[in-house]
């Protein structure tokens, strides 16, 4: 399983891709042996996706691969010969895409979509195809149930859809599978499960796999070799264990540094009252209204209590659908509480008069998950950051402008960014603008709803560091909503774990992460890949050990 194998399954040489005369993939060469799993790692924009797409002839229009060739199963192909590459797709080269929400056709039943590939590449009878499809569905962890084939994609969760996608690729039994961030869009726990399923399946069938990811720790668990790409160039490659132990290229070291690591945080100063306290909060969504039948409302949050003190970060952790975002929305006033009490500085919100309630609203800000949709596309950065300041009657135009300049500097962007529109910024820069907007009015409480889940690992690290730094400066209380325990490790003081609308575990960060009591917390923790720093530099893979009775997920 190494490069000097007599004839690798796939050998790519001299792959070069240009967009408007700009090199996005520069003279890339690599090989994959039969049955081997390799990983290509790099930030977004490093060219890893384009490079692998070009092997299948699936480059987007306007992007051309002019130079490059590959040797696959002993045959030579030119990478600009799209017709030849097309003959390989499906039965020889399979691809699993990132976004399971959009890679299945919403208008077709999944049975039709699964039959499609087999119909195209084999001459099997319908009954035989169906037998294989059902067997494969069982293998990817779904039920062997004919009724499933009659369902449409929207009837499945994200994790199940990705399993279906994997099934549709595996049905062709391709010799090589390219998986482009196959689990990035999924929850931590589901991520792990889907990944395990996929790799167990490929190992069993003997397919080679190319994993593409920005998450070095995650792929390190599965790949025998890792290729690191930076700005279109292959900067380092090697056996996973060796590469982690002694990374040579500075970029690899930067990637490894970005891995979540527990940092000791200064404990918040003791205060008489928490900034925010939620007591036995219940939130319900009205169900569908029907004629002649009572409306059944859905309880999204059930009796949740939490407190956040000044200068403290409390993480609310849970899978999607656990109700954590609903809690956040209730706190910022977008969703009403059905029952329970919300207190600000020890005073109940219900007992406040109008103007005091207004003051609280202005003192409570939110950082949203997706920086690509949270900024008005028609406004310049200056206007966006100025927006919350407009509500502060004490500031005149000049003072507001001064504050905008100050804040944009504090989030690490220069004044040269002020006249730009959001679409001219990268994801990390946009999230910085969103943070600037949130802190502009020096709020006392901030809700951060998955502030880094749309970002690359390295950018994630920068944003989290920025949040910690700003919290030290302003002393705001912060409620962090996330499904990623890596984020929790880096910035949270305390952790609350939520499942199905209830808080199932709570405590100090170290206590919860090292000695979790609830089964769900354990599953979350087990799904978090862990690399441990070695004393002599570099990293080793480590299985997470949990105190208490073993580490087996229940």
């Amino acid at each position, binding site marked *: 399983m190494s490069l000097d194998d007599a004839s690798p399954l796939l050998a790519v040489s001299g792959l070069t891709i240009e967009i408007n005369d700009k090199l996005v993939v520069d003279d890339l060469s690599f090989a994959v042996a039969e049955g081997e799993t390799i990983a290509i790692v790099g930030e977004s924009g490093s060219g890893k996706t384009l490079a692998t797409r070009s092997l299948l002839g699936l480059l987007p229009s306007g992007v051309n691969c002019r130079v490059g060739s590959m040797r696959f199963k002993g045959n030579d192909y030119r990478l600009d010969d799209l017709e030849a590459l097309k003959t390989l797709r499906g039965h020889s080269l399979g691809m699993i895409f990132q976004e399971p929400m959009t890679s299945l056709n919403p208008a077709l039943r999944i049975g039709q979509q699964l039959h499609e590939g087999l119909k195209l590449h084999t001459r099997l009878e319908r009954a035989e195809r169906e037998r294989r499809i059902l067997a494969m569905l069982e293998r990817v962890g779904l039920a062997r149930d004919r009724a499933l084939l009659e369902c449409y994609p929207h009837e499945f969760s994200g994790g199940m859809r990705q399993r279906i996608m994997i099934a549709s690729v595996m049905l062709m039994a391709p010799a090589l599978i390219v998986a482009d961030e196959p689990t990035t869009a999924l929850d931590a726990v589901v991520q792990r499960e889907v990944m395990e399923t996929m790799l167990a399946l490929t190992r069993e069938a003997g397919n080679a796999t190319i994993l593409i990811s920005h998450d070095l720790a995650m792929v390190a668990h599965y790949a025998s070799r890792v290729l690191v790409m930076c700005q279109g160039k292959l900067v380092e490659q090697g056996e996973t264990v060796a590469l982690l132990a002694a990374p040579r290229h500075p970029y690899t070291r930067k990637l490894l540094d970005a891995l979540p690591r527990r940092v000791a945080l200064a404990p918040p100063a003791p205060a008489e009252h928490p900034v925010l306290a939620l007591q036995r909060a219940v939130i319900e969504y009205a169900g569908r209204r029907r004629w002649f039948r009572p409306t059944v409302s859905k309880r999204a949050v059930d009796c949740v209590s939490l407190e956040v003190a000044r200068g403290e970060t409390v993480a609310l952790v849970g899978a999607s659908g656990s109700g954590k975002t609903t809690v956040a929305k209730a706190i910022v006033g977008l969703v009403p509480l059905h029952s329970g009490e919300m207190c600000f500085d020890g005073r109940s919100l219900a007992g406040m008069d109008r103007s005091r309630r207004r003051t609280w609203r202005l003192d409570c800000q939110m950082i*949203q998950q997706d920086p690509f949709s949270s900024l008005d596309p028609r406004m310049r950065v200056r206007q966006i950051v100025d927006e919350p300041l407009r509500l502060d009657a004490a500031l005149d135009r000049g003072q507001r402008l001064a504050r905008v300049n100050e804040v944009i500097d504090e989030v690490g962007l220069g004044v040269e960014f002020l006249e730009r529109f959001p679409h001219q910024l990268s994801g990390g820069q946009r999230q910085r603008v969103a943070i600037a907007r949130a802190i502009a009015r020096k709020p006392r409480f901030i809700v951060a709803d998955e502030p880094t889940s749309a970002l690359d690992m390295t950018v994630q690290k920068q944003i989290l560091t920025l949040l910690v730094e700003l919290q030290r400066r302003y002393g705001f209380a912060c409620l962090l909503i996330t499904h990623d325990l890596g984020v929790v490790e880096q910035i949270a003081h305390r952790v609350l774990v939520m499942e199905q609308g209830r808080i199932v575990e709570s405590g100090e960060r170290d206590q919860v992460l090292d000695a979790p009591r609830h089964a769900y917390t354990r599953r979350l923790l087990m799904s978090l890949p862990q690399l441990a720093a070695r004393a002599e530099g570099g990293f080793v893979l480590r299985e997470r050990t949990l105190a208490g009775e073993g580490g087996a997920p229940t």
Partner: protein
Amino acid sequence: MKRLSLPPLNALLGGLLLGILVAAALVGLVWTPFDPLRINILGRLQAPDTLHWLGTDEFGRDVLSRLMDAAFTTLSISLLTVLAAVFAGVWLGVLSGYLGGLVDRLVMMITNTLLAFPGILLALGLLSVLGNSRYGIVLALALAYTPSVVRIVRGTVRSLRESDYVEAARVMGHSEPFILARHILPNCLAPLIVLATSMLGWAIISESALSFLGLGVPPPRPTWGNMLAASRENLADAAWLAVFPGLCISFALLGVNLLGDALRDFLDPRMKP
């Protein structure tokens, strides 16, 4: 910051076509080569020459002067129609999309009913009631076009209402009217401008069609439509009577559509690199 560069070709061509017509209309208000209404039986059906550049019609009236006079009538009616339809449509669309509930259902019911009739038929029916005055035409056409504006605006508002940046503005503590004016309306602009320009095109056609059918501005006031209608009797030996008003209508339409495309690109900051 700003780069000086040539405007795109569609803006240039559209602006040129529409500019000439608008200039002719405005000049026509104060001066025309001849009185557009003066009848000269001796000089009827003259082919274009140095005196009458575009010839004369069956009553000896100067075609160029009549076209200039008609340009103002047609363009002003179309513009007023679109403005009225956009004004009414935006209000109703925003109310319906933002408030939802009963208001939404009521507005959509009326809108759908109006949309069920072909626009020109609706205008015809209304005109027979209102009588064919200038403002009657504006009112009738505006009523026929308002439903499409309501539809577009309502749809856009409904999707924007749920968008993350509107939510962000709400969390900031901004009032609903502020959010509407600052985040929602500006983001409705792009689809609205595309619609408004194509509506201006339809309005020019419809006004001409109404005139052609004899329901436009009453004669002897010339419009491109009634000039075209009158030309039919002498089409065989005085083709210029049909060609020039026809060209005016076509050029006006072409100009409006080209300019609309250019305007949309210009107004959308995302189109800038």
